[in-house]
């Protein structure tokens, strides 16, 4: 049984010929079929996956394999994959077959990884529960009446349920970390600019960052080794050397300063979540870290700031879905304007439309200064909060989300309550810092709790090590939901 093995274990099994990539791929395809009711995948292309597995097996037998060769990976349906549907979980792209590979897809292919399928998500990555998908909601393997979180809910559920050993995701305001927390797995959002955005369908360009959802920090390091790197096709990607992220794992934490922002432990934080985080901090103290309090005075404004900037960018980024060149077009219309209106009214879901409207309003003449410009200023202040905090500590820790996974449908009628799910993750995107969520316990109903770790710019090696050391002394990340053993 390989479905809950780490990537390193899978890789050595492949290299030792204990299992072939074909067998491994078949096994995961079998589980995807078996746990279809999770609705974690939008597209599974069995033949394509097996063909890639066959090539990988050949590479392995020829001794030309790397650490990810032959390992099946699931990709959020936001990454363009040549010749496959790339829908962004939207009706408007429900028929869109990408004619090119996103940079990160090309990198996985080069590494010899197998594309297992495309995972479900909130439409255009807008949502925190995966209920905004044209293809229906995803269920949380820990409690199928609960949401998996979002927007990378399909990727999170797939990894938590053992349907994929690893998955990619994107994080604009918490879309990797929050579902990782809700599904009891490890999620990594790298620094803005670390992973190419080329071929990743844009939601809010200045905040979007690709990353990964996996079983442990070590796996995250393996995946980041493949994903990270400068891409001349993405002008916002950063030309910094890419270290081997697995090499710094296991370094001693003695003397490391961990900052706790008191703003992350205030009103709205579920008591059980708060307690779990305190226990995790106690665990870290045993590892020799120094814990200090830090101030993030502007972080309480992160949510309103984000809900101006992200929709503003989205309103422009989503203008290209107009029914003219590709994607869904309304079947009956009287003229051009009518075609636009009908196509976009029918093609976008309610949450996407809400954000397009908010963003359009925020950028309109007469409102730009009051909303967009003001939000930009706030963003700078929040980044400065982090800068000041990092003068006194090396890593910031706190809860990933204020609660654990909630029931499906519980918040669909209350957008603001839904938005507040991302209260602790959003500031990290606004600042462009790297962040992780790692499993740190369960609440009384058996729903997983996530510990958020925030690192300094491009200090992913340290961040991953801090997560890894915790996972060496705890086993929350090894827990498996009932029925998925």
């Amino acid at each position: 049984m390989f479905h809950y093995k780490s990537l390193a274990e899978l890789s050595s099994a492949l290299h030792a010929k204990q299992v072939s990539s074909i067998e491994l791929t078949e096994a995961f395809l079998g589980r995807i079929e078996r746990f279809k009711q999770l609705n974690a995948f939008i597209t599974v292309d069995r033949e394509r996956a097996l063909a890639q597995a066959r090539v990988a097996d050949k590479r392995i037998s020829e001794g030309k394999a790397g650490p990810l060769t032959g390992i099946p990976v699931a990709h959020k349906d936001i990454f363009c994959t040549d010749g496959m549907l790339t829908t962004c979980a939207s009706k408007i792209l429900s028929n869109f077959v990408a004619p090119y590979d996103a940079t990160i897809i090309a990198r996985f292919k080069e590494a010899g990884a197998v594309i297992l399928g495309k995972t479900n998500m909130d439409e255009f990555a807008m949502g925190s529960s995966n209920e905004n998908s044209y293809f229906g909601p995803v269920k949380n393997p820990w409690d199928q009446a609960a949401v998996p979180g979002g927007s990378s809910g399909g990727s999170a559920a797939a990894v938590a349920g053992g349907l994929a050993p690893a998955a990619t995701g994107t994080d604009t305001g918490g879309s990797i970390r929050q579902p990782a927390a809700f599904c009891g797995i490890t999620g990594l959002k790298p620094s803005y600019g670390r992973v190419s955005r080329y071929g990743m369908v844009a939601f809010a360009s200045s905040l979007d960052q690709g990353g990964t959802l996996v079983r442990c920090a070590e796996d995250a390091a393996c995946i980041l080794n493949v994903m990270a790197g400068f891409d001349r096709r993405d002008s916002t990607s950063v030309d910094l050397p890419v270290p081997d992220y697995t090499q710094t794992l296991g370094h001693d934490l003695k003397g490391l300063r961990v900052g706790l922002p008191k703003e992350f432990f205030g009103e709205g934080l579920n008591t059980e979540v708060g307690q779990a985080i305190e226990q995790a901090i106690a665990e870290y103290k045993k590892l020799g870290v120094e814990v200090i309090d830090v101030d993030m005075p502007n972080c309480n404004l992160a949510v309103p700031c984000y809900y101006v900037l992200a929709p503003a960018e989205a309103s422009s980024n989503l203008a290209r879905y107009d029914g003219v060149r590709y994607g869904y077009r309304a079947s009956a219309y009287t003229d051009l304007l009518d075609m636009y209106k009908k196509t976009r009214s029918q093609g976008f879901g309610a949450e996407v439309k809400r954000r397009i409207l908010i963003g359009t309003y925020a950028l309109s003449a007469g409102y730009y200064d009051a909303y967009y410009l003001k939000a930009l200023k706030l963003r700078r202040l929040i980044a400065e909060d982090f800068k000041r905090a990092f003068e006194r500590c090396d890593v910031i820790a706190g809860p990933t989300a204020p609660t654990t996974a909630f029931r499906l449908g519980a918040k669909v009628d209350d957008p603001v309550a839904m938005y507040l799910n991302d209260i602790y993750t959003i500031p990290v995107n606004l600042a462009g810092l790297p962040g992780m969520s790692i499993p740190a316990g369960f609440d009384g109903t058996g729903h997983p709790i996530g510990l958020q770790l925030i690192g300094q710019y491009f200090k992913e090696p340290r961040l991953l090590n801090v997560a890894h050391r915790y996972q060496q002394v705890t086993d929350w990340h090894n827990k498996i939901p009932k029925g998925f053993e």
Partner: protein
Amino acid sequence: MEWEAVIGLEVHIQLLTNSKMFSGASARYGAVPNTQACAVDVALPGVLPVMNVEAARMAVKFGLAIGAKINHHSVFARKNYFYPDLPKGYQISQYELPIVQAGHVDIEVDGVSKRIGVTRAHLEEDAGKSLHEDFHGLSGIDLNRAGTPLLEIVSEPDMRSTGEAVAYLKKLHELVRYLEICDGNMQEGSFRCDANVSVRPKGETKLGTRAELKNINSFRFVERAIAYEIERQIDVCEGGGTVVQETRLYDPNKDETRSMRSKEEAHDYRYFPDPDLPPLEFDDEFIREVAKTLPELPDAKRERFMREYALPAYDAGVLTATHEMANYYEETVRASGVDPKLAANWVAGDLAGYLNKENRTIAESAVSAPMLSGLLRRIADNTISGKIAKDVLDAMWNGEGDADSIIEKKGLTQITDTGAIEKVVDEILAANSKQLEQYRSGQEKLFGYFVGQVMKATAGKANPKQVNDVLKRKLRG
């Protein structure tokens, strides 16, 4: 009441880069529709723009040439609107911080020079083309042009007449071709102009309400559209009405402008900084590098031609209209070694006549500078007369070879042997005794008749001056 027109121009020039402003697709004109549109130009989901550095270099070159401030830090912004030939639903342009600011262009109208301010010049991408004919009631979209780099050059409202507007436009047109940043082809749309026109009572300092004129893509249309619009606005004002702010389209067939959309119907473009593109930043070194590529500019060249070749202003103007023309002239002077004024007469006169007739540029001239030099040398050394030279040039233009071989083949060498000329003169006088008698009895205007007869007998080859001298001497007889 006396009225004054106030005119400002917005000129879009297509930059002569190989690839597009934000993609690697070719920016060449005239390809089969939609064959030069890559994933970025079509705005597929997930694609991102990457700035073409060559376009920035050209913008800086332009800025330096008009004495403008070059912004070391400029910002790309999105201009949002829906249109089928605008694939992203927004155009990437520059809004608050353009790359070039506060320059000027000097013009001259009727001998009076004037400085026209250039407010700004900014980089942006072009849209595609919508084709409304030949699609059975539907529209065709060609995205070959989508993403082509443009520099939008915005003037101050400094012009007061159609003459000044056209002079400014021509000056810009000349300049961008000199700088080799635009081919200036107005028919293909690589040099396009919109005009902002308003009128006000003479002496008033406040600006009147302006109308923006579109679709004026030739010098003639610019002149006619602005002239019409000034008249229209004066009529409105004098009729007691008020001019409304609007965009008006020029109809060249009816020679009038008509309202396209009012201020109320104007788009709210929702400009904001493009988050896909970091601000465009460069240092002094970059500007210095670009400055090294600046050619001698038209005004400087014109003055140098007047000084160095002792040419009148008119000749210098014609010869420096394009830098290709100027290079041709200078090469001719150098290669022929003849009097620069003689060379100027032939390049700006006869040769320019051929070019105009066949609508060719100097680069497409059938007679090259070395070939023309060969002809000028034969005029200077008296091998042929100026009149015969015109025939030789015609033969050269028609591909019959170089000057010397045409002169030899057609036996056009001038007769300069005085003895031979005297012999012909004697024969003419003997054969025209009646006219000789009349001449000697006072009808001196018959002198021309004798010259004509001699030239006819020598097939135009006799040296005209010598014929005159010999005839005068013999007629005095």
